[in-house]
């Protein structure tokens, strides 16, 4: 029997060979093996992640072996595209995070297991329940095309687009089923995914079945509370304001005031209770098939009234081996049921602005008993009661997802160096959405409210196969891999429209299919285990481009040198590991959602509200669609220098310098008017450059029997700059609230993408801003668009992550901190609301932020572009802190219980005046607030 040294658990699949022969076998699930050997033969036991062992056979009948885990992290297995390698042999920038390193806390969706953990990876999640995240690896290498990384679950690349009714592509996945993440960052690592790899790749590996029985049960309860509100006037303050503050020179009508004092933010937000339960079982089914089964439920209440997220997950993993482990089959099948009730986030703004002198309820109101501004039974113009708007609407989404893959790995019987892998993947999400409002909803419209029903279905089918050949020739180890991949995505659905409105029609949609086909190969050559070379090549075809442009070639190469294995460092006590890496490669981008068939000559008919009339009869007009038959790949070339280091056997880490240049950007730019069927189409123009430095360090400060302290620190410095734009022309972007079509950001050559473009505010001698007065920067005596200047951008210059785990006897403590430095945010809440004229909301009164007292501005349109609303939003956040205690060997069956408690969103240190400095895209227009959550949980192991 072969067992694991520290736990005595049998190890299946250990290679047992007689050295210098082809005679060999592998252990079964119970670690047993049989081999014929002669006295004096050297038997070699090897297993990835363990130190190999050689035994000189002395004729005994049974030979029990204990394999020792390879302490050096260098041999940690790293999953890379279409295969795996060891950390020591890796030539690219790849970071692997396994379950013990995961970020802890209130983890509802899987990406948060990675929050703050990996240099170069930023994850921004909103506060809404079950919400998706914006994941960026090295800032994103595109401007108009997708900046989302490619996410692969057990070999199945998933679609980056979600469905209506779901919170996003990762929201359906149970974080508890995840075993590890591999983050591929540089081109030498990602190029094997060719056309989809420019924004990095995240490979998720789920937990597998095991031969021995174990089971876990996790329960977690959390209690959330919002800790902050946007400052607005209270009822009494508001009454005083109305009495004293003229708007545009005329005093306000006090008779519109009510007698109540309502804090509308308190009325729409609530404290929340949420729970998660997970059961998993591992063991051998029919004593032959290592199996894992998991079941999880999550119920998360949203801080905004009515919003709620529920999910149930079923997972099954079957991992049998046949023919002495020559054939391994991995089946991974998952079902997820996601039920959402969405709270209308627009009501957050409505609550800010709602008259605080009015009550929530009004028994005489014909609108369901809620107070509304009205004149008899007729609703007045202006905002409607936000509490009513939330409670009278049920916007429900129900997404069912089934995904998984079936993986065959066959090691040829006569050529054990050759391995064939076949991977079949399937992912289907079907959703239903119901949007139903009460018929007592506040409206003067003859159509009372909404009742609509929608469906959507996305499918993703993937097939790939590859051959892998690895052999040693003396001091040279080679590994060659070549394969083929096919993937097809579909998306369609429909909506009934408002069934109460005779003018509303049902509609359907069906996206063009997206088909991606690739041929790929990779060669790894290692000389003396010290000099490593990796060459990869992929040729990809996409259905998004015309026949002449659809194929692209994506090569990459990397060299690595394990200097610490050289004689002059081999015995160093200081430097335990040192590796230099250099890599270069080209990756592609073709993800232009919404333009999947722009190369085709198409016409589009108007929908039922967009017809024309000839002779007073309706005729469906057909309008030629914009066309670009010349569209081709956007290409990103990456060059990277990296150092992986280890010091005193305690400290490990890496330092990377990289530069990415994206050329032929898929960019929406003007075409000469009259020569196409739009004024602007997506084209290949422009260049974006990203330069960066990443640094990480992992330290085991103390590593003793009773006490372990380690920390992980990572830092990312990023600079993104537009080198070239279409026609050298600025592009305004970053739409803001407060008027139709206002933009606050700009794309300009030589600047960071989405730099803020603002007017320079003038101040009087006592330092107060002068309303509507700006510096005439071009000196032409007119203040117009030409006087806007560029100031800062939404992206952080430096991103820091810090995490620490402390174990003392049975006690464990962990926390993590994150900081962004140099990110700016435009406070759109103040810019569009903190002006006195906003007190008049049509014919009724409205509340405004108390920050008005800092400026005393009257008119939104005069000040909305002022740089006074642009703020430094650098922050330091403690995302979570968790304390746990483990009781071991509680009973014969119960191996351990861990009880733990923690806090999510512990604190934020920032100078930013808004609610939360971490906004999306640098424009703070009332994000769904992130609550502070107190967590308690228990973890049982059987």
């Amino acid at each position, binding site marked *: 029997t072969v067992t694991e040294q520290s736990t005595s658990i049998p190890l299946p699949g250990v290679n047992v060979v007689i050295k210098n022969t082809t005679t060999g076998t592998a252990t079964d699930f119970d670690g047993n093996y049989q081999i014929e050997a002669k006295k004096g033969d050297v038997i070699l036991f090897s297993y990835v992640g363990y130190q190999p062992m050689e035994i000189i056979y002395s004729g005994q009948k049974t030979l029990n072996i204990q394999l020792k885990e390879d302490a050096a992290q260098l041999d940690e297995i790293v999953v890379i595209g279409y295969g795996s390698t060891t950390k020591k042999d890796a030539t690219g920038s790849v970071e692997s995070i396994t379950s013990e390193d995961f970020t802890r806390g209130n983890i509802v969706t899987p990406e948060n297991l990675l929050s703050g953990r990996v240099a170069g990876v930023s994850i921004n999640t909103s506060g809404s329940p079950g919400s998706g995240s914006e994941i960026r690896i090295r800032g994103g290498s595109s401007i108009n095309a997708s900046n989302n990384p490619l996410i692969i679950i057990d070999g199945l690349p998933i679609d980056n687009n979600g469905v209506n009714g779901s919170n996003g592509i990762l929201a359906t996945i149970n974080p508890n089923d995840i075993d590890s993440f591999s983050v591929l960052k540089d081109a030498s690592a990602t190029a094997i995914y060719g056309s989809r790899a420019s924004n990095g790749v995240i490979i998720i590996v789920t937990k597998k079945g095991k031969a021995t029985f174990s089971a876990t049960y996790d329960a977690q309860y959390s209690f959330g509370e919002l800790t902050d509100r946007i400052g607005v006037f209270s009822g009494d303050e508001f009454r005083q304001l109305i009495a004293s503050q003229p708007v545009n*020179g005329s005093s306000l009508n006090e008779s519109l005031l009510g007698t109540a004092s309502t804090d509308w933010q308190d009325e729409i937000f609530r404290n929340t209770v949420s729970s998660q339960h997970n059961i998993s079982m591992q063991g051998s089914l029919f004593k032959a098939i290592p199996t894992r089964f998991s079941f999880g439920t999550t119920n998360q209440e949203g801080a905004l009234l009515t919003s709620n997220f529920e999910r149930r997950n079923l997972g099954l993993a079957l991992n049998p081996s046949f023919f002495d482990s020559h054939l391994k089959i991995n089946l991974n099948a998952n079902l997820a049921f996601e039920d959402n009730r969405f709270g209308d986030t627009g009501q957050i703004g409505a609550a800010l602005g709602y008259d605080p002198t009015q009550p929530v309820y009004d028994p005489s109101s014909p609108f369901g008993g809620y107070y509304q501004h009205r004149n008899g039974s007729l609703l*007045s*113009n202006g905002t409607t009661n936000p509490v009513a708007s939330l409670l009278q609407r049920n916007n429900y989404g129900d997404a069912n997802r089934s995904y998984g893959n079936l993986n065959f790995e066959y090691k040829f019987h006569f050529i054990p160096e050759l391995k064939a892998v076949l991977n079949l993947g399937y992912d289907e999400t079907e959703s239903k959405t119901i949007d139903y409002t009460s018929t007592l909803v506040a409206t*003067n419209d003859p159509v009372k409210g909404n009742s609509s029903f929608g469906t959507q279905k996305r499918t993703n089918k993937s097939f790939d196969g590859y051959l892998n050949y690895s052999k040693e020739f003396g001091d040279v180890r080679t590994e060659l891999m070549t394969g083929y991949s*096919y993937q097809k995505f*579909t998306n369609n659905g429909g909506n009934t429209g408002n069934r109460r409105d*005779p003018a509303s029609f049902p509609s*359907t949609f*069906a*996206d*063009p299919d*997206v*088909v991606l*086909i690739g041929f790929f190969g990779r060669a790894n050559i290692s000389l003396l285990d010290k000099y490593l070379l990796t060459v990869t090549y992929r040729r990809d*075809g996409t*259905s998004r481009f015309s*026949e002449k442009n659809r194929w692209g070639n994506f090569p990459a190469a990397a060299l690595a040198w394990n200097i610490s294995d050289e004689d002059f460092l081999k015995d160093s006590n200081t430097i335990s590991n040192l590796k230099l890496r250099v890599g270069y490669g080209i990756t592609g981008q073709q993800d232009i959602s919404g333009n999947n*068939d722009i190369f*085709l*000559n198409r*016409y589009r*008919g*108007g*929908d039922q*509200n*967009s017809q*024309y*009339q*000839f*002779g*007073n009869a*309706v*005729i469906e*007009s*057909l*309008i*030629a669609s914009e066309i670009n038959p010349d569209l081709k790949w956007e290409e990103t070339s990456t060059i990277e220098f990296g150092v992986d280091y280890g010091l005193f056997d305690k400290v490990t880490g890496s330092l990377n310098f990289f530069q990415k240049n994206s050329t032929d950007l898929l960019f*929406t730019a*003007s*075409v*000469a*008017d*009259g*020569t*196409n*069927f*739009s*004024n*602007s189409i997506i084209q290949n123009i422009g260049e974006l450059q990203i330069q960066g430095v990443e640094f990480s360090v992992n330290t085991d400060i103390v590593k003793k029997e009773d006490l372990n302290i380690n920390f992980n620190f990572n830092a990312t410095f990023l600079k993104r700059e537009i080198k070239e734009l279409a*026609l*050298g*022309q600025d592009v305004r972007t970053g739409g803001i609230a*407060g*008027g139709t*079509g*206002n933009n606050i950001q700009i794309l300009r050559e030589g600047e960071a993408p989405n730099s803020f473009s603002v007017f320079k505010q003038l101040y009087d001698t006592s330092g107060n801003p002068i309303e509507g007065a700006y510096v005439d920067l071009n000196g032409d005596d007119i203040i*117009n668009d030409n006087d806007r200047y560029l100031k800062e951008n939404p992206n952080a210059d430096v991103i820091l992550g810090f995490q620490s785990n402390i174990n003392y006897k049975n006690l464990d403590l962990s926390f993590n901190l994150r900081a962004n430095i140099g990110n700016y945010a435009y406070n759109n809440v103040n810019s569009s609301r903190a002006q006195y004229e906003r007190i008049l909301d*049509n*014919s009724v009164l409205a509340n405004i932020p108390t920050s008005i007292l800092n400026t005393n501005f009257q008119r939104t*349109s005069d000040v909305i572009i002022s740089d006074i609303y642009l703020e430094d939003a650098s922050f330091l956040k403690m995302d979570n802190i968790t304390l746990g205690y483990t009781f071991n060997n509680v009973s014969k069956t119960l191996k351990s219980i861990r009880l733990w408690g923690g806090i999510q969103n512990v604190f934020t240190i920032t100078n930013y005046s808004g609610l939360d400095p971490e906004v999306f895209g640098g424009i703070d227009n009332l994000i769904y607030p992130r609550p502070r959550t107190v967590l308690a949980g228990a973890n049982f192991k059987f």
Partner: protein
Amino acid sequence: CTADLDITPNDDQTTLSEDLFTNETAYKQVLAGIYANLALTGTDGAGSSNLKNIDAGTSQFGRVLLYVQSLSADEMIWSYENDPGTREIQRNLWTAQNPLLLGMFSRAHLSIALANNFLRETTDAKLDARNVSTTVRNEMPAYRAEARLMRAMSYYYMMDIFGKANFSTEDDALNSQPPAYDRAQLFEFVESELKAIDTDLIASRQNQYGRADKSVAYMILAKMYLNAEVYINESRYTDCVSYCEKIINGGYSLATNYLHNFMADNNTNSATNEVIFPIVSDGLTTQNYGPTTVMINGSVGSIEVNGTEVGVSAGGWGGALRVRKQLANLFNSSFANDTRNTIISSGRSIEITDISDKDSGYILQKYSNATSTGTFGVDQTFVDTDFPLFRLADVYLMYAEAHLRGGGGSLTTAVGYINALRTRANNSNTITSGELTLDFILDERGRELHWEAHRRQDLIRYKKFTGGNYNWVWKGNGSNGISLPAHFNVYPIPTASMAANPNLTQNTGY
């Protein structure tokens, strides 16, 4: 299986062109697409747009035309100046970056592209190849002439507004960089084109409602001739008079009630006798944020909350539109009962000293989503009211003006036309031939045609738009009006349009 990379559209609203024309009704539908570009901004509802870098609502043809011709002049004020571009248009501060100007330039050029495409797809060679039936082929000369008419109309507006256009015809390739034509070249092209299609166009008032006939071509010609001194520095008033006569002889008559022209049923009521070319709008099937939707919702008063009177929600758009003092003054006390006077002044001051104060200034109620029989349009936002782009009353006024400017015709006839308009408006103050002066006509045009997207062109012809001899409130960003430099007689070429075509150069002064 790399053949899977050859995809076709799956959506039932989208068709490949190679499949489209196997169905012969497609020709009429593609023709309807050219017309629809004047009413719709996209194919998927009022908020959709096939133009980019401009808000869908504000790239609607009729709406941006209203902005550049009426909002920029002495008749209209838009309260929401945080809607980009509106402030600069109504205060005459525009730059080449103005999004509304981009909307105007791009939308009109899209009509050109759609017309060129139709002409390419309906050549004899293509029709032969597709074995098109005789029935459809018999209609084809009229279809093609209408496509050319819509193209010429776009060039006409570009000539008037920008003084330039990208010039491309059905012979030019897609995504090319076409030559830029100046006013003289455009004048020559539009004139010859409109004359060339005359035989193929359907006779006046004989085409289906919503489609253009000979009179539309005559109307454009008449307007070009009336303004020829501005465009090409030539006097063409005689041509103007003769084309006005051609229109008048086409069988038009004034609507029985002035306001019928601006009502929800103006596609069926007596306005059909008067309207020469409408931009169609329908609360159900042709929803848009076009000029009638904007003016009906926008003219609802902030104090009056009188939306239900005109068939939209009570508050409408909260007082988005008001009247400048100069327009209000055209309707002095002797016009109190003139039906063209729809001004509501009670409880309001005539002055607008603060544009964002929606309670100041007069409002008016010219357009309505109510029908002549007292019912209302189907929707409370999107109106059924078609926008009368060209109508007979304008022709009467043009005739009179061209006559006074030496274009011939008869003074008696001219006075008769003016008095017909007054009589129709229930105004007993008819004029004598001695009272018919050019200044009178400009004022009368204001009274008859305000808010119909003509005013800027009229003021330029009268040399009153730029310079300082006529200052209306907020002209040049002065609350009482200040002089404008002469280069403001044309708008600047939008930056984005110019960058995409190096052959286009900026107008002098910008």
